[in-house]
């Protein structure tokens, strides 16, 4: 399809062509035309049985989520012994079965669970876990505990692999100020934005002056051969920004979002993502952030509110997608860089730990509990032992949701976890 050109060149040439051109509503069509490529999302499929209109939404719970107070092992006395102040009282747990239940503030989660739209993967982690936020987050985002490929992330490598709908600058959209390592790729296909209003370049002049100014802006920012790395990176980022800016604002203008989102930053991020999905962006992966899970002190209250935000936010998001008719296309996956120590500390909080549950949402998940809960008595240095490697979860998503080859992207074969069919 892209003979004689690397995919990086393809992306860059396509971009430059578009950026230098006038204002077309859809970058995608223009690139396709420019490259003589009959781009039709409905027809391109890389793996039989996996539709190409699938969308993945990654939710990062930054700081280290306390898995034991999220999915509560209420039948286990060891839990109550380890957490005299912080344990969720047995009577308040939202029971999923005779041993495990959800935190009482996760009622919206429970509704999704009962409707078959939520899956919980228990005890996820990796060997020789790091308890550093930064190291562990790097490991999760690069999917590489040995730190060989820290330049690009696991989603970025998916963008760089053969993925037919990835050759656009908005293949990945991060809602937040800093691009996560997970989305970084050699081709630079991911963009970041926070609000659509601020996501545009404003000329200083009005009317025809503004149009001329924008034209000059594109000349000043156009990539050129043989330039030093940082300047080159900045030029391509600028071009991506200009193209994605038009796409995103166009999409967001077309759909305002119906469901009642919680009035939080996370809620606003999910609303924006729903708008972009409804607006028909060609985006494969969206990335949203929650922060504040690093609950070393006074955990109660703060953590409770976060769990409610997560549950209510995702529930509103899925309602919105259903109203749009897009729910079947979307998989939401939530992760954190680590769980927390089994025993509470003296500050009414918990210190950095290891294994924790991951969550997957959407009408197409295989609902319920997957894997088994880590033992609270057979510990490694006071921390839970993992049973599922997080790369198995990634492998499952890559193969069964995105239709990609997991071994190529993850560098090794990993077992699948049956939360997706």
């Amino acid at each position, binding site marked *: 399809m892209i003979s004689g050109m690397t995919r990086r060149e393809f992306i860059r040439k396509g971009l430059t062509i578009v950026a230098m051109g006038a204002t077309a509503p859809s970058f995608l069509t223009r690139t396709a035309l420019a490259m003589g490529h009959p781009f039709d999302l409905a027809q391109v499929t890389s793996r039989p049985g996996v539709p190409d209109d699938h969308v993945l939404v990654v939710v990062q719970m*930054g*700081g280290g989520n306390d898995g034991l107070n999220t999915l509560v092992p209420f039948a286990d006395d060891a839990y109550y012994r380890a957490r005299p102040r912080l344990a969720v009282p047995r009577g308040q747990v939202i029971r999923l079965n005779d041993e495990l239940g959800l935190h009482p503030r996760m009622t919206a989660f429970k509704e999704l669970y009962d409707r078959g739209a939520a899956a919980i993967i228990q005890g996820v982690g990796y060997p020789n876990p*790091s*308890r*550093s*936020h*930064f*190291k562990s987050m790097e490991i999760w985002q690069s999917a590489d505990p040995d730190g060989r490929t820290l330049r690009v992330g696991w989603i970025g490598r998916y963008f760089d692999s053969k993925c037919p709908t990835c050759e656009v*600058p908005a293949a990945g959209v*991060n809602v937040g*100020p*800093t*691009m996560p390592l997970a989305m970084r790729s050699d081709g630079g296909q991911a*963009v*970041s*934005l*926070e*609000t659509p*209003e*601020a*996501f*545009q*370049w*404003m*000329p*200083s*002049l009005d009317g025809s*002056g503004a149009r*001329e*100014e924008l034209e*000059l*802006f594109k*000349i*000043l*920012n156009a990539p050129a051969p043989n330039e*030093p790395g*940082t*300047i080159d*990176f*900045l*030029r391509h*980022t*600028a071009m*991506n*920004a200009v193209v994605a*800016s038009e796409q995103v604002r166009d999409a967001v203008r077309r759909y305002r979002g119906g469901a009642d989102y919680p009035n939080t930053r996370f809620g606003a991020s999910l609303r924006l993502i729903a708008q972009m999905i409804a607006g028909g962006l060609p985006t494969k992966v969206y990335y949203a952030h929650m*922060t504040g899970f*690093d609950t*070393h*002190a006074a955990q109660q209250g703060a953590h409770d509110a976060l769990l409610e935000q997560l549950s209510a936010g995702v529930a509103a998001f899925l309602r919105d997608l259903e109203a749009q008719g897009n729910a079947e296309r979307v998989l939401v996956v939530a992760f954190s860089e680590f769980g927390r120590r089994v*025993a*509470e*500390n*003296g*500050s*009414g*909080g918990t*210190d*950095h730990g290891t294994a924790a549950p991951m969550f997957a949402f959407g009408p197409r998940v295989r609902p319920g509990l997957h894997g088994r809960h880590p033992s609270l008595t057979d510990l490694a*240095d006071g921390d839970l032992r993992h049973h599922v490697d997080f790369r198995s979860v990634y492998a499952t998503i890559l193969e069964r949701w995105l239709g990609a080859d997991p071994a190529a992207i993850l560098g090794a074969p990993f077992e699948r976890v049956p939360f997706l069919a």
Partner: protein
Amino acid sequence: MQQALAKFVPSASEPWDRARAAHLLNRAGFGGRPDEIDRIVRIGMDAAVEELVAIDRVPETTAPPDFSALRAAWAAAAALTPANSTERQRFEARVTAQRLDNQKLQELREWWTAHMLRTRRPLQERMVLFWHGLLVSGRPEVRLAETLYIQNELFRRMALGNYKALVLAICRDPAMLQYLDNESNRKGRPNENFARELLELFTLGIGNYTEQDVKEAARAFTGWTRRGYTFFFDARQHDDGPKTFLGRTGNLDGGDVVEIIFAQPAAARFLPRRLFEAFAYLRPEDEVIDALAEVFRASNFEVAPVVRAILTSRVFYSPRAMRTQVKSPVQLVVGAVRQLGLEDAPLPQLVRAMDLMGQALFIPPHVGGWPRGESWITTSTLLVRYNFSGLLLTGGMPGVARRAAVPPALPPEAARACEAARTAGEVTDRLVDRLVGRALGADRRRALVRALGASDAASPFALDGGESERRVRSALHLLMSTPEYQLA
């Protein structure tokens, strides 16, 4: 000094020129205007670096913010007890104090910004910013805004002082005690938050200690708490049992832990690397860091000799260093305002612009501090950075302020740049020299000439009222909306 850290010696092929003088002012401060750069060229590198490093040479006159009303509000809230008030009264007193605290935090953010805009000690403020990004504390974890000011003043006082002393001071700093929870680190059930980051992010770096060391260090810091705005050692909460930390056993306390840390070879390399990366470039050569570590250790962990060695080194003035650093939002905003002579620009808008670029002063993203290098740049933040010049030139910027009906006057330094120029090409070159300090490619220069409304560089151009001002504004906005302007 070792070869890797050889001193810069001017020569015919590498003279002490305007480009190198501008580079020094960019990195050790917030940039310089043409007359300042000329003066630095005249006095030479050694004298210039000495001026910058000898912070006390010039008096600092900015008045500190007034926290007395806020202290009174918190004291009033604390004085209410179930015996002398209703629950509603206590709640309202807390809300009043919290609201005032939030206002004061915003004031503090504007105060520091104003201070950076006007300071005559640019290296001191660059160091305060460096420490804020390394020994990180901030909202929302730090509940008392005044303690963030106290910490900011600590960084200012010890800007180029002794690092071991600064680390010991930060272990006792009321904002840090809140931010990393050491204020509630108690005997029996220690809180590891501070101990871990002290080792990982402040002094040694990952790989130079074990998980067991983290746990033992946390025990050593039990009982290190605060009473209000000052450090307090709570002997009842301190674990005085034997501990083994990095191979040393004894009844260790926090001070011993700091001593042991600085006896590690990794400690001598840690800060010099961070300093070099802040001033020169990322991912430096090992030999350069070896040489700096030697300077650091020999001075018993003084910061000034390391900074002096960096700023006078040959590598600092090498192509790898010059005009290759992505400006942080503070550098970008403060630098632009100073370059254009707009020190009276509305502070709330400048602060908001930095927030949108990803550098919210006193509200760092996490304990790891700010991004560095290309990590500052995403499609989102790049557009914000580009739009920022619109704020200075038209009064408007998406997400910050609506454009004024009547545009503000042309920035004084922009008008000055046009004064002696007669052609569109000359105006372009003067603006480029001031703002980028290096010539643009021919196509890009031509684009700016066109922005001035000229068909070619030789076309006459004079600053004579409305239309010509609009043209200069447009050219400036375009020039500041370039990759080149993002680098220092």
